[in-house]
Each structure stands twice: as structure tokens, then as C-alpha cells.
């Protein structure tokens, strides 16, 4: 039998020959070193190709695709909640900054509310009551820390910490409320 061509060898490896052809090829591979060497190389090549060297796709592909398909829009509820919390934080910090020492704004509020008997007066009254109450609480906490840990942190620091805590819980609460409102619509 004449030497095998490349196609024949490849066909043999893939099992694509008839039984008769197969046995002829097998016989030739035994007697012919040249064809046998070629066959061995094809086998090695097939093995290498059969285990592909994959290049790991950069993570950015999946991230970009997901971001483009499903953009994350902040929900209205969290925007409203953030605004409300910021407002609370702003008003209270202004109050603390200007007034904790002498309570003059509270007094001013109270004076104003005495003069105005309408709903605005009641609101101002309510706000000043809340502020005085909060102030009393801060003072109490400060006194508590002084007794237990023997440190005077100052009402301002306590106030600030409480404020941050308060606005954060207020934020979460408002988000919950806004979400409920939106959900019921």
C-alpha cells in the first residue's frame, strides 16, 4: 500500500473510514515509520486542541453589560427620605450651633408663639418644645456619661452623635413610609 495522505490519517483518527479502510491504514502504520510518525503528531495535536487554552474574560464585560441592560435608578422613596433627613439634620445643627448655651431661640420661639395664636404659633411652640426636650435628654445623657465613665463629653458632641443617629433612623423610616405610599398607589 502506498503511503497515507494527510486526509486519510485524519479520517482514521476521527473514525471516519470504512472497516476495510481502517484495517488497511492500521496495517500500514505498523510497517511505515514515516506515516506512523505523522499519525503520532496528529494524535498529539488533537489532544492539545481538545483541551483549549481559554483566556479568562475580563470581569468588566459582565459588569458593563448588566449595567447597560439594567441601570440602577435611585428610587423616589430614597430620594425623598434623604431630603427629609438632610432637612432635619440642617435645622437641628443650626439650632445646636447657635443656641444650646442660652436657649435664646427657644425663648424667642415661645415669645412669638405667645403673640400669635394661629396655627403657625402652635407649630413654633411644638418645635421649641421638641428642642427643649431634646436638650434635656442630651444633658441627661451627658450627665450619665460623666457619672459612669467620668468624662465630660459636652452636650454638643452628644448632640451631634444623637443627631446623626436620629437622621439615619429618620432616613430609614421615611424610606419605609414613602415606599409604602408608593406601593399602595
Amino acid at each position: 500500500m502506498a503511503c497515507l495522505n494527510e486526509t486519510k490519517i485524519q479520517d482514521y483518527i476521527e473514525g471516519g473510514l470504512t472497516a476495510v479502510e481502517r484495517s488497511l491504514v492500521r496495517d500500514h502504520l505498523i510497517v511505515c515509520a514515516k506515516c506512523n510518525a505523522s499519525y503520532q503528531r496528529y494524535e498529539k495535536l488533537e489532544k492539545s486542541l481538545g483541551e483549549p487554552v481559554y483566556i479568562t474574560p475580563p470581569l468588566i464585560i459582565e459588569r458593563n453589560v448588566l449595567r447597560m441592560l439594567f441601570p440602577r435608578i435611585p428610587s423616589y422613596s430614597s430620594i425623598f427620605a434623604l431630603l427629609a433627613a438632610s432637612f432635619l439634620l440642617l435645622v437641628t445643627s443650626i439650632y445646636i450651633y447657635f443656641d444650646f448655651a442660652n436657649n435664646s431661640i427657644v425663648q424667642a420661639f415661645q415669645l412669638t408663639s405667645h403673640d400669635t395664636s394661629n396655627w403657625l404659633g402652635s407649630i413654633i411652640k411644638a418645635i421649641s418644645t421638641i428642642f427643649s426636650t431634646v436638650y434635656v435628654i442630651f444633658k441627661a445623657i451627658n450627665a450619665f456619661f460623666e457619672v459612669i465613665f467620668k468624662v465630660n463629653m459636652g452636650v454638643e458632641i452628644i448632640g451631634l452623635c444623637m443627631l446623626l443617629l436620629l437622621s439615619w433612623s429618620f432616613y430609614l423610616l421615611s424610606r419605609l413610609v414613602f415606599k409604602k405610599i408608593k406601593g399602595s398607589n
Partner: protein
Amino acid sequence: MSLDDDQVLIQKILAGKRASFEELMKKHNKRIFGYIYRMVRDEDVAIELTQDFFLKLYHVLDKYNFEYKFTTWAYRICYNMVIDHVRKNPAHIESLENDTIIPKLMDSENYVKEDTLDDLVKEEIREYTWSVVNRIPPKFRELILMRYLQELKYEEIADITQLPVGTVKNRLFKAKEMLKTELEKDGVLK
């Protein structure tokens, strides 16, 4: 009709489950990116094309016909995208079409093949083989990639490329002959 894993995922995606698309993407990313990267041989371009592929896939997913295998349908989109890209970038075509196989590693004339190359372990042969794949002409390279990297059958490749099965087979044989010749020349296959 029983559905395979891909088809189950597609049903979930079509029902609005976004996480399933992420799963589908994770499952095929390696084979899609691997194919594109080895075809265009430029990482940035490959990243962009792979992203475009998945975006497109998501948008045409409702046109998928469950009677066909998902990979055949999806990889055909990928195949066409690469062809489009090469067509739109003539500079790229040139570099691809005029690409001749240039052995890089073991090219020096009086290279001592015998003992040095005996040390080439199987792993290195494999790595080297796949680096040579990147250097053969595109029309042969794409078939090798579909057959071995994307693990498709002759019939599936014929479907994707719109070539007769016989042509696919002959071209693959020719491609492997090229690879073997190159590896022999480089002294990797003895």
C-alpha cells in the same frame, strides 16, 4: 419538548428574571470572548465586541426559536458580528488576510532541537499549539475555534457558517495540517 439548561434559562429571562441572564452570560462568556479574542487579536476590541454581543443577545432573545439549539443560534450571532467587524475595519482585514504564519518561539536556524525540546512538557505543547492557532488565516482559524473552543459539531458549524458539512470538514483537516506543519517547523511536534 424537553428543554436543555440553556433553554430553561432563556424561559426564565423571558419571564423577566434578570439573574438568569447573568447566569447565561457567565456560562457562555468564556467561549464567546475566547472566540472573539482569538479572531480579532486585540483585547480592547474583543471586550467591546463581547459586550455588544451580549447586549444584542438580550434584545433578540425573544426571537429565539426553542426548536433549535441555543448555542448554534447564539454563536451564529457572534460569528456574524466578528465578520461585520472585520468588514467595517478594512485595516483589520488586511492584517488578517495577509497574515502568514510566523513562527515566533523556536525560529533560530541552528536551534538545538533534540534535548531542549524534549523538555517541552505536554502543557507547553498545548500552550504553544493554541498560540499557533491565533496565527493561521482567519477562515481556518474560525473553524478550529468553533470545533475545539466552542465545542461544536460539524453540522452545527455548517449551520453557523452556512457552509456544506463536507467543506467544513475539509477545511478543518486543512487547518490541522497547517497547525501540524507549523508545530513541526517549530520543533514542537516531533
